[in-house]
C-alpha cells in the first residue's frame, strides 16, 4: 500500500542549484537534469503579472526583461515549487516542479524554452 499512485508522485528535484554563475540547474530524483539559462527561466515566469489569468497568454514582453537578468535567491515553496527572486526586482512567480519538468529545455525533453510561441 506504500508504493501506490496516492503516494508515488511525479519527479521531484533532489537539488535546485547553480549550473554556473547565473544559470539554474535542477537535478531530478529520476536522475534527469534540467539546465535553465537564467533569462529563459525569467521569461518562463508563470505569475499572474507575466501570464494572463484569463487567456493563459504571456503578457511579459521579453524586450522589457534586462539581458543580464539573474536569480539572486531561490527559495522552496512547500514541497512542490520554488520561488525565484530576480535581479530585476520580480519575485511573484511560483515555479512548480511539474511546471519546471514540463518546460525542461534539454534535447531529450524537446520542449523549446522560448516562451514566445505559446
Amino acid at each position, binding site marked *: 500500500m506504500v508504493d501506490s*499512485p496516492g503516494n508515488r508522485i511525479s519527479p521531484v528535484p533532489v537539488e535546485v542549484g547553480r549550473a554556473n554563475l547565473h544559470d539554474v540547474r535542477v537535478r531530478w530524483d529520476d536522475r534527469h537534469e534540467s539546465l535553465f539559462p537564467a533569462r529563459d527561466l525569467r521569461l518562463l515566469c508563470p505569475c499572474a503579472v507575466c501570464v494572463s489569468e484569463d487567456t493563459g497568454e504571456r503578457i511579459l514582453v521579453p524586450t522589457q526583461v534586462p539581458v543580464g537578468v539573474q536569480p539572486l535567491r531561490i527559495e522552496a515553496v512547500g514541497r*512542490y515549487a520554488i520561488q525565484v527572486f530576480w535581479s530585476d526586482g520580480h519575485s511573484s512567480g511560483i515555479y512548480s516542479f511539474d511546471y519546471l519538468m514540463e518546460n525542461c529545455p534539454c534535447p531529450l525533453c524537446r520542449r523549446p524554452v522560448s516562451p514566445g510561441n505559446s
Partner: protein
Amino acid sequence: MSADRSGPKRGSKPLAMAGGPPPPRPAPTPAEVRESLIPGVKYVIPVASGKGGVGKSTVSANIALALAADGARVGIMDGDVYGPSIPLILGVKDKPTPGPNGLLPVERYGIKVISMSFFLPPGEALIWRGPMLSKTIDQFLGGVEWGELDYLIVDLPPGTGDIQLSLCQKIPLTGAVIVSTPQDAALRVAERAVFMFQKLKCPILGIVENMSHFLCPSCGNREEIFGSGGCRKTGERLGIAFLGEIPLDTQIRIDSDRGRPTVIDAPESPQALAFRQIAENLVARIESQAKETARSGETRITF
C-alpha cells in the same frame, strides 16, 4: 530539534517579500522553514475532505485525542477559519494567552488547541478574502507557541482553496488524511482534494470512511445509509491506504455537541475503539511515510 527558545523567531513574518534586492543568504530548505515556523513539531497532518459536512472536525478531534491517549504530544489547529468547530467539540471554554514567543494555545484533554473561534465573538461572521486567510495560517503556525509536539493535526475547511494552498506553501506537510462519507456525492469531491494534495506534492496517508453504516439501537439491524465500502473502493482505485470506518452514531454526535468527544467520554466503547484503531493505522502510515521521505530526501536549494 531542541526546545531552545532563545533568539527572535522569524516565523510570524511572511516568508516571501517583494522589493529591493535582498541580502544574500542561503535559502532555507523546506525543513528549515518548518523549523523556523513550528520548531518543535515533528509531524504535521492536515485532515481534509473536499466536501463539507462529512464529519472532518469530529474525526480530527477524536484522532487527535486517540493519539494523545497513546502517550503522544498532540496539537490541533482548527484551519476552518469561517466555520471553526473544534473548540465546541472539545468543550474549550478558555482563551489562548500571550506568551513570551507567541500565543500559548489552550490545553484541553491533554492536547493543545488553536482556533479562529477564540478570536471571533459568537454571533459574528468572518467575511474575509484570500490574503487574510493566508496571514491567519502564518499566525497559527509561526505566531503560536506550539512547543514540542509529535503530531500537529490541522482540521481543514472544505474545498481546495486559499487555506489548503497556503498551508501547503508554508511548510512541508507529513501527509494528509482524507475523510469522506461513502456515497458518490462526497467521494467525487474528496477525489478532488486528493488530486490537489498530489499536485502540491503532499503525500496522502489514507482515507477514513465516516458515517459508514448505522446500527439500529433497538433492533440491531445494520443500515448502510450512504452505502458502505465506497471509501475503501475509492482508496484502492487511487492507491490510497484505507485507515478505517466510523459508524453513523447518535452517541458520537451527542458527545461532540457537548464537548466530550467519544474517545474521552467512553474510551472503551466500540465507537471510540474505531477511532483508536484509525489512529493506530495512521501512526503506522506516518512512520512509513517519514521513512520514505527521509530516503528520498527533501529538495535541496543550493543556488
